[in-house]
């Protein structure tokens, strides 16, 4: 078969993240949000500690496939230290990218390792896996947005 094709989705960066997850674990006393992927039962929890209009700490936990775990891992790198507004924009850009839409070069640079996941657009059945953590972060940002701090 064409393992070459498999390599297009599972790029080295993705495999590295999946093997060595960044910001993986639970943060005590930090608000979180859990989402599951109803087709496979995978669960991801994202936690965000926002202070002074900045994501001070971020973490994710739960189980999932290589794509959902790696995507969560790169996301934590991308969103750490961003303002909630910047984070929302980055999440939007990422979602455009994995849906197969063009995004501009600056946005791509800001997404860093996450931009590699753009290849998921070629694998429509896996878009949901790639988006899981980002959806969780997006919803959590909305929930925390009402918070005075």
């Amino acid at each position, binding site marked *: *078969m*064409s393992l070459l094709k*498999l390599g297009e989705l*599972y790029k080295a960066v993705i495999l590295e993240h999946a093997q060595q997850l960044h910001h993986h674990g639970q943060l005590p006393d930090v608000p979180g949000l859990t989402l599951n992927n109803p*087709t496979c*039962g995978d669960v991801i929890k994202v936690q965000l500690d926002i202070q002074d209009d900045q994501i001070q700490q971020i973490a994710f936990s739960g189980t999932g*496939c290589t794509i959902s775990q790696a995507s969560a891992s790169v996301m934590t790198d991308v969103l750490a230290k961003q303002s909630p507004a910047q984070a929302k924009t980055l999440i939007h850009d990422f979602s455009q990218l994995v849906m197969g839409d063009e995004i501009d070069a600056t946005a791509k640079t800001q997404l860093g390792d996450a931009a590699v996941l753009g290849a998921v657009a070629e694998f429509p059945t896996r878009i949901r896996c790639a988006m899981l953590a980002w959806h969780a972060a997006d919803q959590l940002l909305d929930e925390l947005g009402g918070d005075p701090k």
Partner: protein
Amino acid sequence: MAMTNYRADFPILNTRINGEPLTYLDSAATSQKPQAVIDALVAYYQHDNANVHRGVYTLAAQATDQYEAVRDQVTAFINAPQRETVFFTRSTTESLNWVAQTYGEQFIGPQDEIVLTVMEHHSNLVPWQQLAIRKHAKLRYIGLTSDGQLDMDAAKRLITAKTKLVAVAETSNVLGVTNPIKALAALAHQNGAIIVVDGAQAVAHHPVDVQALDADFYAFSGHKMLAPTGIGVLYGKLDLLEQLTPAEFGGEMIDNVTQQTTTFAAIPQRFEAGTPNISGVIGLGAAITYLQQVGWSTIEAQEAQLTERLLNGLLKMDGVTVYGPHDLALHGPVVAFNLNGVHPHDVATGLDMAGVEVRAGHHCAQPLMAYLQTSATVRASVMFYNTPAEIDRLLTALAEVKEFFQS
């Protein structure tokens, strides 16, 4: 034994997927359709389309005759005692929900017990769970033995005088085991309960005799037995059906309607409100005819041979966990497995690149996944139209996927 190749009867099997020949190993989700079934649908719309049970004109009579002839075919196919005991639904899911909403609604009360098994598909679990919540009834689950069969000792303990209803799959869509329905029916009946059987994974793979099984209700879907989607069957014992109030009202199911009252049509029309899925019924008839032409002995022999190759191939591979019994004698044509350390979604994507289409996920059986202490599995399932070469393609691709993710 040399296998007969039926691939030519199934036009879709000539398709290529990702540049590779389609290797369809997900018949447990839905079977492919033979040309004979496709032709029957086309012929129906080209020559016989009219609404059933309504017109006095010739075309309507033709459509009605064909529709009712399939009821006779299904009656014989599952050896139901009377044609009135067989009615058409949308699917297994609708059939099972129907029993919960009619029999369940009328006869299950507070503290009554409903006995299920941990291997049930959500469609034979959630309707009972929701009924139990509405009625303050209790759910009891029969577990598995260490080799992945239904634990009949537990069944004997759990089915008691408190039990009102037992709901069980004849064949599991994950473990591949066929459950001892006759013995479970006897246990249910000794305790004054009824047994509802989910036949979705059974009807296309071995002869089903609802009288020999002594099933009170038996549900199945056409699409897993070569027929189109959107057509299902529910069989019920006549004395039970006669006690039930229809779940849906409308055209077709009435005898006489006035402004304030309605008398209902006789069974089975009483339970088929509105215009039914006529073409689906015609397609189901063609599927039964086709299955009977192939014949049970061929179907069972070919599927046993394919399952043996699949099961043994997986068991021989290092780093593969196979769920359900490892004994071929206990195994239907469905095998659930995992490649250790690789998520089933990643395995299925890898196999897909080789044109091998398998299912990955919880297979609508999350309580079973929890029981097996996994969140998901890969599942390969075969039907008589598969070939040994396709099993080998799966095994080769699986070895490559393993290599890719583990190196």
